[in-house]
């Protein structure tokens, strides 16, 4: 892993000078801004059971579905199309270092985009100066829980994006694949739970489906419940998907 810092620095530079990265970031922030605006409107119109942080983070999947494919689709697919992946692997750099550097760079940018969204509650708290609302907006519990959830799930989603990009030479195919897998991860389990399964199958599948249900984990995180099971799920899932990406890079130079 001696080349990882050099590769990571290069990948960050590529991401930070690429126009598509900024387009993705701006679009995501505009979208998040709208969601936050509607959260505030709801808060002002009537008393809400959930704090504004929870309402805002419950829409996490919309910017995720937009940002993750745009951040990751180019990473390996473009290098494979240009042939620079082959040149890279003629040095003593390993496929693992390549995949990990691309993952870390995209993940750092993903974190930066979400941290930029922290500006919304700060600005809102400045504008809405009533004490009650201000405390509600800056309540650290939901904010910390929401960010922990977004960062943890983000690792898995970014890994899925990198893996999809390693499977093809086409950025478009990689983007569509990332969108589909991420969509299935977020919505698919919920859809399965809605199916009318036979009672036996339901007994067998219910704990597994509940374990994979991302929205269930979201509620735990936002209420400050630290359960190690989802943490293990996301971290092991990330490691597994990145491992598959390494195999894909090694197999199809």
């Amino acid at each position, binding site marked *: 892993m001696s*080349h990882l810092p*050099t*590769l990571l620095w*290069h990948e960050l530079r*590529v991401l930070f*000078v*690429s126009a598509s990265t900024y387009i993705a970031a701006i679009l995501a922030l505009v979208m998040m801004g709208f969601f936050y605006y509607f959260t505030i409107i709801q808060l002002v119109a009537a008393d809400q059971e959930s704090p504004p942080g929870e309402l805002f983070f419950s829409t996490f999947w919309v910017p995720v579905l937009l940002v993750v494919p745009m951040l990751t689709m180019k990473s390996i697919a473009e290098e494979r199309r*240009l*042939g*620079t992946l*082959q*040149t*890279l*692997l*003629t*040095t*003593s*750099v390993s496929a693992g270092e390549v995949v990990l550097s691309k993952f870390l760079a995209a993940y750092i940018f993903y974190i930066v985009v979400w941290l930029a969204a922290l500006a919304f509650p700060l600005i809102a708290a400045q504008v809405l100066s009533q004490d009650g609302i201000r405390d509600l907006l800056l309540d650290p519990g939901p904010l910390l829980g929401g960010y922990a959830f977004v960062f943890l799930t983000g690792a898995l989603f970014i890994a899925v994006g990198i893996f999809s990009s390693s499977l093809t030479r086409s950025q478009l195919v990689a983007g569509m694949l990332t969108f589909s897998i991420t969509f299935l991860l977020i919505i698919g389990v919920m859809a399965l739970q809605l199916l009318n399964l036979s009672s036996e199958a339901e007994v067998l599948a219910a704990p597994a489906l509940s374990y994979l249900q991302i929205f269930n984990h979201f509620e735990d995180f936002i209420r400050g419940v630290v359960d190690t099971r989802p943490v293990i799920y996301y971290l092991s899932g990330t490691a597994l998907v990145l491992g598959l990406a390494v195999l894909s890079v090694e197999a199809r*130079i």
Partner: protein
Amino acid sequence: MPSYVQSIVAEGLCKSYGGHHAIRDLSFSVNRGEVVGFLGPNGAGKSTTMQILTGLLEATSGEAYVAGYAVARNPAAVKRAIGYMPENNPLPEEMRVREYLRHRARLKGLDRRTTRSRVEEVLDLCDLQRKAARKLIRSLSKGFRQRVGIADAIIGRPEVTILDEPTIGLDPHQVLVMRRLVERIREHTTILLSSHILAEVEISCDRVLILSQGRLVAAGTPTELRREFIRNHRYIAEVRGESAALRREVAAVHAELAVTRVGEPDEDGFYSAEIECPLAEDFAEPLLQRLHACPALRLRALARRQPSLEDIFLAATKRSWELEMNGSVTQTAQSGSAA
């Protein structure tokens, strides 16, 4: 590092994809400090062999050694000892030349201080100093891109430099620049290069390896290959006088000599004639004396036409095809009689 005399050794290399054999039982060696040209028609297996040597592809069977290290058992050491420019020379379009070379130098294990000086060194060696070094790679011409590719290949001071088609798509001027570049870098490294420009290979390389249908069909210096593959001699004479007299005089030197082509006479009445001799013996001197002494003819020039590498290439690959064809015909006949 193990001591070695031969920078590259290939022993019975085979690579097959499904039922297709890309290379078959390929054995050759390249001595330290040599520049060797790798020739072959498209699909002959040149790029596959180069990729096996760099560790990018695994051979189905056989063994390859680079700088004394076995490629299959010690790929990391081989990658450190090798500088490779792949076919089509892929480069990141959005990076500047100097910045790209610095990045590559760091990946090849050079420390920060060495990187800085080495990058300037290779920029200078490859004539990329000043403006070109600051340019975005996407804005470079083909010739400059090839130079960047070579600069990248040699930046880690490799023991062995492998260049896959470094002259492809270059104009004659750029080919000349590339030739000078190969001349300059050969002091520091062993070079294996493939090219379609055979005249270029003949000028730049000490030895030539010719591949056809995945097999090595010829290996040696251009002179050795001429001796092996081109048995006949050709002479070009510029003469004035009747062609019948020329034919008579040529036949008088040796019965096997024949005039094969007679050109149009120029304004002074001289025409060029091609004389072919199927024997290995050289008849240049008796031919010159005979034609000079003949009163019916006036001889202005007589030159022995040196067979080009292209002739050797065609002869070597044609022979391998014929052998292949004969092999498959014999096989078919045997299976027919067995049935």
